[in-house]
């Protein structure tokens, strides 16, 4: 699915990456705990989160995350926006809560970047 369709489904506002709405995404990971994002989010996935600091963008960059979707109507600080522009990671913000955001995307065919955490999940 194109990021443009994600934007429509979530009635989201594009904060960074208006020129990147044609990228393809299939999977997502959602968490506010950055250690879990590091541990489980996979390259090419979207990151759904309510955290907005520069760490989120830096981690997204390290993990090759395709796009950051901020939930609960969060707006990132200027430093996070500047960093996202630098590293070319789109940021969208939606007013939906994390549960609704995930549910709406799942209903349209986006799946988790992993289904369950089991022993050895970190090696996938």
């Amino acid at each position: 699915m194109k990021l443009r369709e994600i934007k429509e489904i979530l009635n989201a506002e594009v904060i960074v990456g208006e020129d990147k709405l044609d990228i393809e995404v299939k999977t997502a990971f959602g968490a506010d705990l950055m250690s879990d994002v590091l541990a489980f989010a996979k390259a090419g996935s979207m990151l759904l989160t309510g955290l907005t600091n520069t760490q989120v963008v830096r981690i997204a960059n390290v993990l090759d995350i395709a796009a950051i979707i901020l939930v609960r109507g969060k707006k990132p600080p200027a430093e996070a926006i500047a960093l996202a522009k630098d590293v070319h990671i789109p940021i969208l913000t939606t007013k939906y809560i994390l549960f609704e955001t995930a549910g709406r995307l799942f209903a349209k065919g986006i799946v988790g970047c992993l289904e369950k955490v089991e022993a050895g999940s970190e090696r996938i």
Partner: protein
Amino acid sequence: MRKASSAVWKKLKPEVNASENILVKNSFDVDGGNFDTAGTVSTRIKSILKEQGLPSDVVRRSAIVSYEAEINVVSYAKRGVINLTVTPAAVEIAVNDEGPGIPDIEKAMQQGYSTASQQIREMGFGAGMGLYNIKSYSDRFDISSEVDKGTFLKMIILIQKP
């Protein structure tokens, strides 16, 4: 040598022997308490490993352990140094910090145990997952610490599986 309250979780064999071809050797300083730049060293390490053309799994795991270790230095220590060594066989990330040290390493290794400040938690860290993640994502992991001196971590990610 920092020996007091030391625990070796996975016994280390010398991974990088002198005769081996060293592809990358780099040293990075980390400022304790500087949350603005936290993670930038790990971002560079990831780029370096990617440029080396290493398998994506190796790059990813190296970036994760390095990131968690860097966050720990920024969160707790005065300063630290991250040393990156790459050979055809393995990526080695060694982190040495000057800081409060860890009084009880066994406890610190447990999932969910944390002494993090509110500031660290607001960033999305400090949930007691750092050292646990570092251990799970490295093939070999060594930690030792001395209270009021600092902490030493060594993580090895194998490129060629034995």
